[in-house]
């Protein structure tokens, strides 16, 4: 090898080192732009608009799955609590009813029984909910984390591509196709842009496809498992409403002329309202069933307004301590 050849060879090698170094430099520069939130080239950003929209969908799937898991957990807990409270209320009514030899006592007993039954049936809801929880959890571990990996790789390649574009922009400032040296440099950068672009375009495509698939499979999962839940819920409602309806039927035409019985019921109710109001969200509906049931039996009673007042007091937004108080007291309280 002549001296001249050797120098040429040496510089060639050297220039590939320089090349690598420059690649790193522009990639780092792009990373910095991204990390520091500096304004990016708006055309480059605009050309990724479809990708960014897909990423938005991905993040929403990610976020809402997390939220769904939390909600299911809370819901499960509340079902348990509600069931417990319902059961206690039922047991209380039964024991109170057994001491009351009047017809009202019978009604209380029957209602208590119905509530205990409903409290048991309610727990059946947990099975499809557990299933939903597991499926969503699996979905998160498998599908979401798999997509997440692809998204990460895509972001890496995006940084590399944008870095290469920065580099190309830089060498384009001074470019003359008739100057050999400049062209040689430009070709190198062009090759780098082509390479990183090919990689990025492929991953971009992968991400878009995966996100579409992710959305579709979540839809599928939810519709499948939620149908299960829906069926169980309907089943539960059917059973309990059936029981309630049966009680209602058996006491039809009953005219509680015993005012003291009504008094007992009212006091019982107030006590319960006070206790259960703490978890009013859940008990509100139980009470409604309860209330309408009694409302019907109390139809002929003059002071039906007592019930209405009670019911009005049950506004979930008011202070639980105000339940059962008169309006005047209430006004004083809120004043």
């Amino acid at each position, binding site marked *: 090898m002549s001296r001249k050849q050797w120098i040429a060879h040496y510089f060639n090698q050297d220039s590939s080192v320089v090349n690598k170094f420059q690649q790193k430099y522009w990639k780092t520069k792009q990373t910095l732009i991204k990390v520091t939130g500096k304004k990016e080239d708006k*055309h*480059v950003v605009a*050309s*990724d608009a479809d990708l960014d929209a897909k990423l938005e969908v991905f993040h929403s799937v990610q976020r809402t799955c997390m939220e769904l898991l939390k909600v299911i957990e809370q819901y499960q807990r509340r079902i348990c609590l509600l069931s417990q409270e319902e059961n206690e209320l039922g047991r209380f009514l039964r024991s109170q009813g057994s001491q009351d030899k009047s017809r009202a006592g019978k009604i209380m007993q029957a209602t208590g029984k119905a509530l205990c039954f409903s409290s048991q049936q309610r727990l059946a809801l947990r099975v499809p909910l557990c299933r939903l929880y597991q499926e969503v959890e699996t979905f998160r571990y498998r599908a979401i984390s798999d997509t997440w990996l692809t998204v990460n790789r895509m972001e890496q390649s995006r940084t590399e591509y944008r870095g290469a*574009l920065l580099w190309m922009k830089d060498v*384009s*400032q001074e470019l003359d*196709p008739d100057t050999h040296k400049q062209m040689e440099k430009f070709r190198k*950068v*062009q090759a780098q842009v082509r390479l990183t672009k090919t990689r990025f375009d492929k991953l971009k495509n992968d991400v878009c496809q995966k996100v579409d698939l992710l959305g579709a499979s979540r839809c599928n999962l939810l519709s499948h498992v939620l149908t299960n839940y829906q069926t169980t819920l309907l089943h539960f409602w059917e059973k309990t409403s059936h029981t309630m309806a049966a009680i209602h039927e058996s006491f039809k035409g009953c005219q509680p002329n015993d005012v003291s019985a009504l008094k007992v019921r009212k006091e019982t109710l107030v006590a319960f309202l006070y206790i259960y109001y703490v978890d009013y969200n859940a008990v509100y509906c139980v009470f409604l069933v309860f209330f309408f049931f009694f409302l019907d039996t109390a139809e002929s009673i003059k002071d039906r307004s007592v019930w209405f007042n009670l019911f009005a007091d049950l506004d979930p937004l008011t202070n639980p301590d105000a339940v059962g108080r008169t309006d005047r007291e209430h006004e004083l309280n809120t004043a």
Partner: protein
Amino acid sequence: MAYAYLFKYIIIGDTGVGKSCLLLQFTDKRFQPVHDLTIGVEFGARMITIDGKQIKLQIWDTAGQESFRSITRSYYRGAAGALLVYDITRRDTFNHLTTWLEDARQHSNSNMVIMLIGNKSDLESRREVKKEEGEAFAREHGLIFMETSAKTASNVEEAFINTAKEIYEKIQEGVFDINNEANGIKIGPQHAATNSSLAGGQGGQQAGGGCC
């Protein structure tokens, strides 16, 4: 090869309108049916003769994809002529013309000659933009207009050569300062001496006429 003048051209327009194909047809008389996306810019050159003078066209075929927009802006500098291309079978490429024109006017010298080209005229059955619409746009913005086909080579020569003629006339009129390379015109090595009178006369309106 020796030339009297060198004109720098730039080809711009949306991706896929056929910029690279027009260049290839003009320089190599070939057609490339597969879309080979241009990365940044590609170059082509060809000699033409106008008024008995050899003129070298140095053509910059830019990338139309949006991510290259900021890069290709630096290529406008020093261009004497521009071919602004749209695809007659794609209405959106026609709709984007105003953006392209704004870009060109902003980043090039004000004397740059712009030729509007409606390409793919061979695909008459799929036409979405009427020829009259192209003509109207060109008239409104003071451009020259032509419909071409890079596939059949129809009007391709004319598009490049008519642009050169227009530039040449502007030189004759003294509109272009040919000694300022920022105008995209270089004087060829052996012609530099003969043309110096022309260069000197660029300030006056009539001066160009006599020298050729």
